[in-house]
């Protein structure tokens, strides 16, 4: 250090020390503030905590490694984030009505969440009608998908399918493309639920295929997409599941990156080129209301991934180092009490996501702590994004929090925490092995309990829940429930459809699928073929569960 700089640092130290004395005198007993990831938050950050000396290595410019400031040179100033609302309700007709309304309101992409019966791996005719379409749309066939996407230009609008292995919804989508004469390379979007490991350890919403079976289909699906649907993102690593299940933001990012390494190495081991496969990796995160912590989580995650993709996974193309992510405002922070307050919460979460540099976003409806959003709340959720972009001018400057002593210090501290988590997983033999050993499940359980304890002790305050409780009668929020008669008609039509098919042909495609599962050919090609021939979601899943094993999540105390 030059004498001049050393003198300046001494001056600064003295100035900060004098503030410290004054602060201590005036504040009396100071509060201890620890963020959700366990990092102690100090009252003031200065150049003593973070200086620009490592600017080039740690920050750089948007669009260049290590991408801390964003993965594209233009970021939101050039192209706004994709407004992609998660939608799933009722019958395919109900879905179509909602998606049409949202596209008119400004949504720029769509996503589809199947009915929970689908997640259980069964069709609507095997489910209690009371539960059908209450949480997700009933989509069991290519016909259903065709109805759901009526009038939606799937060659122009990107779609996200909440579709675990073996990706039946995607197969139905390709069936629809084929019917409409749309070449597969025009289909864009993301397999939002391809992260099977997260299903076993965290949210358990999967089609109940065994873990080794899911691993096999995952790799075949990536290969299939590379060959036939090159603009589809077959991989989405879902940090959201981890955080919703209780992981802290730092644990979430660590587990997500460790999972991504597992998937990347599985694909590379299967002969794929990291420069191809990593360009199609995407991520899906929760955005909690812990504002600065979330911004730092995303900035640190981007930086770590760029280094891993380059140094560990051997990708040479900088485009393969980009950490593309979708953010969803966290439902965990929303309250059933005083539900309109959730509009304010979602707004704060959304800003954290935008400043965190996301590529696509879902904002929750204010009633999402209660049920599927109603039309009114869904409209407000989209409007929130429009207001932040158009009126609050959040897109004018790229990475506007960069250079903040606090945000940069926190980004560095979050990075350390994230790397610690990744080391635990690495020591266990990677994410697949760590999940097998219950390490991840225990981490999630412990953090969920700790967070609940913080709420109970009042360390974490939630307006309307453990402080500022309302004296007045709660406003009743209408909850969405599908029309029972329409759902019964849907089930009856589905039964008639099944009975009217060419049964020999269905048996043949299911037999082919079983043979592929037991052999070495690409099993996903046979899934697409079966769906196209009229096989249902439940039939495809049942076959693969028979051949590749039934999936139970591992429960750990």
């Amino acid at each position, binding site marked *: 250090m030059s004498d001049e700089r050393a003198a300046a640092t001494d001056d600064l130290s003295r100035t900060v020390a004098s503030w410290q004395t004054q602060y201590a005198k005036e504040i009396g007993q100071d509060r201890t503030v620890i963020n959700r990831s366990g990092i102690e938050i100090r009252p003031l950050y200065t150049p003593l905590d973070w200086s620009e000396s490592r600017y080039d290595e740690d920050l750089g410019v948007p669009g260049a490694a290590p991408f801390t400031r964003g993965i594209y040179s233009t970021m939101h100033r050039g192209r706004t984030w994709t407004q992609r609302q998660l939608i799933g309700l009722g019958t395919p007709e109900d879905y179509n009505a909602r998606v049409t309304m949202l596209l008119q309101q400004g949504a720029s992409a769509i996503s589809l969440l199947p009915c929970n019966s689908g997640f259980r791996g069964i069709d609507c005719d095997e489910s209690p009608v009371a*539960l059908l379409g209450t*949480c997700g749309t009933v989509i069991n066939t290519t016909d259903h998908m065709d109805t759901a996407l009526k009038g939606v230009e799937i060659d122009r609008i990107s779609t996200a399918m909440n579709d675990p292995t073996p990706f039946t919804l995607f197969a139905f989508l390709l069936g629809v493309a084929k019917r409409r004469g749309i070449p597969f390379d025009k289909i864009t979007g993301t397999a939002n639920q391809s992260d099977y490991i997260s299903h076993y350890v965290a*949210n*358990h*919403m999967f089609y109940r295929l065994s873990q080794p079976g899911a691993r096999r289909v995952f790799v075949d699906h990536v290969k299939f997409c590379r060959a036939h649907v090159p603009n589809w993102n077959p991989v989405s690593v879902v940090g959201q599941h981890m955080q919703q*299940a209780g992981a802290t933001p730092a644990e979430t990012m660590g587990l997500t990156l460790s999972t991504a390494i597992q998937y990347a190495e599985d694909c590379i081991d299967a002969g794929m080129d990291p420069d191809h496969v990593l360009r199609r990796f995407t991520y899906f995160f929760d955005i909690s209301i812990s504002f600065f912590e979330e911004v730092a989580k995303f900035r640190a995650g981007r930086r770590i991934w760029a280094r891993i993709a380059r140094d560990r996974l051997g990708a040479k193309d900088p485009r393969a180092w980009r950490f593309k992510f979708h953010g969803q405002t966290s439902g965990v922070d929303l*309250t059933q009490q005083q539900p309109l307050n959730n509009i304010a919460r979602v707004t704060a979460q959304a800003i954290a996501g935008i400043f965190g540099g996301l590529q696509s976003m879902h904002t929750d409806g204010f009633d999402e702590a209660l049920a599927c959003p109603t039309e009114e709340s869904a409209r407000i959720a989209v409007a929130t994004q429009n207001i932040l972009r158009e009126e609050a001018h959040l897109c004018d400057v790229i990475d506007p929090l960069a250079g903040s002593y606090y945000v940069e210090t926190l980004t560095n501290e979050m990075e350390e925490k994230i790397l610690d988590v990744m080391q635990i997983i690495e020591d266990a033999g990677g994410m697949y092995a760590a999940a097998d050993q219950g390490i991840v499940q225990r981490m999630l359980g412990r953090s969920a309990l700790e967070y609940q304890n913080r709420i109970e002790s009042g360390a974490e305050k939630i307006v309307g829940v453990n402080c500022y409780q309302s004296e007045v009668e709660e406003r*009743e929020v209408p909850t969405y429930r599908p029309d029972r008669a329409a759902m019964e008609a849907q089930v009856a039509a589905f039964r008639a459809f099944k009975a009217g098919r060419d049964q020999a042909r269905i048996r043949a495609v299911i037999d082919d699928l079983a043979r592929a599962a037991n052999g070495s050919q690409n099993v996903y090609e046979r899934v697409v073929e079966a769906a196209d021939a009229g096989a249902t979601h439940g039939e495809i899943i049942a076959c693969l569960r028979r051949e590749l094993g039934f999936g139970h999540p591992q*429960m750990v105390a």
Partner: protein
Amino acid sequence: MTYSPANYPERVLVTKIGFDGHDRGSRVVAAYLRDAGMEVIYTPPWQDIRAVVNLAIQEDVDVIGVSSLATDHLIIPDLLAELRAADVTHVRVIVGGIIPQNERPDLLQAGVSAIFNPGATSEEIVASVRALAAEARAVRDTEEEAM
């Protein structure tokens, strides 16, 4: 013999029925009940209603706690009907999770003893389970004497 937590801790089955797999809530509640000294029987999600009834009988539980995040509470009346069909009248059923205001009456009418929404404290839940377990044992003792 009168039962008390001292010679026989409360036995609680914590479970999820239906289709939803989100178990953060049920895990946290199970941990609180365990830490309060109760014996907790915990199941993975997606239990069949009949399986829950069988487990409640085999494990001789006082209270069944059903967690519901994503509308599975809509089939809880079926669980109560199945308990009655199996002649299990003393076991108390409580529900925790996302239960919209307008759907509470149906559950209470079906025989659910208590409903806990997000924001309920562990203290409230533990106290309620304790009281309901005592009630369940009192009913069972009366039934046994009558036999």
